[in-house]
């Protein structure tokens, strides 16, 4: 593991949090401190199940049927599980949103983040497919991203069976899921995979180098600071983290070519580690002649809209994503 020293005398003062989010952050940090190290991964995982999302919640009183499918892994990898929520009352042609959960590559399951995606699905008539990928450090790169890509391939190939129009397939993810969504989008482009309609990258984890100004600026604050980020990337990449050999499918910020990507939505908080790498990713898509939309939410910490969905800025962020999807899919 490379030890990175802060740039001398140049660490900017932290961005203040939005007042509503700051008020909630105190309680959130009791469950999830800004920083944690590898020895805390197990306790983070055991903190999860008390908030498990049940099938009953996913069914939303009959609005969705919920199924789990076991499908083959990539190139002889173990099978993977897909959670599939299909809207029951949809009238027109269905689309599909392929969801990759967050959790820093090291925690979480494929029910995380599904409720928000179901909000999109209800409004836009989408099948929701959420992939259970293997986690680091037990499964280092490329295991996690290959699982995600295998699930995406299966989903695209079974569009008819799942009942959606293959030209209306969108990938999405938050945090580590956003990074993995960006990665499978690159893989689909490079390996002749499915033609994607778009990618929605919510505060994506893109850059294993963990050395942007925002990563230093927000150290020790908010959610998922640079120490936690180091923990996640090191779990995925081991000693290779930050070195010259990291694949863009592990860390999409490493991609040298961001051309020929589907329409991309990126959003991120101004008060989080990922601010600068996410802004740079959107900017590099534009520089490559691509289509991207970028929203930087002021004073917001990592994952703010998931942790504090009632806050005003959370409502705006969620509404903005939905409006983008409308523009993308309403054609």
């Amino acid at each position: 593991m490379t030890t990175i020293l802060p740039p001398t005398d140049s660490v900017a003062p932290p961005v203040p949090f939005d007042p509503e989010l700051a008020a909630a952050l105190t309680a959130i940090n009791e469950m999830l401190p800004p920083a944690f190290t590898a020895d805390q991964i197990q306790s983070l995982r055991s903190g999860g199940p008390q908030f498990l999302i049940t099938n009953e919640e996913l069914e939303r009183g009959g609005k969705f049927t919920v199924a789990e499918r076991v499908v083959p892994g990539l190139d002889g990898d173990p099978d993977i599980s897909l959670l599939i929520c299909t809207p029951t009352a949809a009238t027109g042609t269905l689309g599909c949103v392929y969801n990759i959960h967050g959790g820093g590559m090291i925690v979480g399951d494929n029910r995380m983040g599904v409720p928000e995606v179901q909000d999109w699905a209800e409004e836009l008539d989408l099948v929701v497919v959420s992939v259970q990928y293997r986690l680091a450090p037990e499964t280092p790169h490329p295991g996690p991203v290959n699982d995600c890509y295998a699930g995406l391939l299966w989903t695209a190939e079974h569009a008819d069976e799942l009942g959606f129009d293959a030209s209306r397939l969108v990938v999405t993810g938050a945090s580590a899921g956003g990074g993995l969504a960006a990665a499978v989008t690159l893989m689909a482009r490079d390996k002749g995979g499915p033609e994607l309609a778009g990618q929605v990258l919510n505060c994506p984890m893109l850059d294993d180098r963990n050395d942007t100004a925002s990563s230093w600026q927000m150290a020790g604050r908010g959610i998922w600071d640079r120490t936690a980020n180091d923990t996640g990337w090191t779990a995925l990449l081991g000693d290779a983290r930050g070195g010259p050999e990291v694949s863009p499918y592990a860390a999409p910020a490493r991609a040298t070519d961001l051309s020929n990507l589907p329409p991309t939505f990126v959003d991120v908080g101004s008060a989080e580690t990922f601010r600068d790498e996410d802004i740079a990713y959107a900017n590099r898509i534009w520089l490559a002649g691509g289509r991207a939309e970028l929203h930087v939410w002021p004073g917001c910490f990592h994952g703010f809209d998931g942790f504090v969905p009632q806050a005003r800025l959370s409502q705006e962020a969620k509404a903005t994503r939905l409006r983008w999807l409308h523009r993308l899919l309403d054609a």
Partner: protein
Amino acid sequence: MKDLAVRLAALDADAGAALQVIAYFDSLVEARAGLQSIVRGAAVLAGCPARLEDDERRLRIRVDQAGVSSLSPEPVDPAWLRMPIHGDGPAALWLERAGPPGPVEAMILERASGAARGVLDRTRGRARTPDPASVELVLDAGADPELRRTAARGLGLPADRPVHAIALAGGGAAVAAADAPPPPGRAGIGPPGTVLELPVSWTAARTALRFAADGTDEDPGPTVVHFAQLGALTLLAELPAAQIPDVRALEHAGSGAPWLLSTLDAVAGGVSLRAAATALRVHHSTLQDRIVHAEHLLGWNVREPHGRFRLQLALALRRLHRHR
């Protein structure tokens, strides 16, 4: 790792939840959050819609438990949980849930209403009752100037704009920025100046107050008088009390008909008889009849310039006499 409401629901009714509520609103206050954020916090933490209603300031905010602002045409239900914003006023923070409150709800009501009170007092300028001792100090020419400046700051007087003293009916004193609206009721207003000139402004304000009328039929005339607009009339205030025949004539005439003094005041102050008739809401010919009657009682013509000046002077002297 879900949202705060889930966390608080799990802790409901125990001391930990109350502490979370305290920390939540303390943090909002520290960050100078707005009223929407405060009401949203109350709604989300209580798990039911919350309202802030302040008729005095024409303020209505309602946020539901999902954090969405949604005004409702339904009036508040008196059975709902409520905490007044100010102890004596109708403004209140409401939770749309019938009582009695649990310990967490009580804490939410207390902390949210306190936070809202802070924002309202800071941003919407509630007219706080000024400290009478501080007012007395800034009007005292003999007091130490530094103490007077400090007291003026405490009263919220601007340091960079003119201020003036106000003499109120009944002997009360007030101080205000010179561009602030006058208080309701009878008032004399001193000339504008610096904070340290307030004692001079105060002396003049008390003089101006003597020229201010109650604004009734019995005591018609302006209720608010600025000393700076009185001109040489102020000299009259320095005269010793005396029986003046023209004032006696006014008292005599006024005792016969309730409308007479207000009619004469309108004639003395109006730009024309037609304007006076409009102000009095009587027909022009009615006014003519009344003036003839008044002139008969007074013994002089009030329509020609000299007689009109004599009337103005007599009315001013009458107010000075009444408000000694």
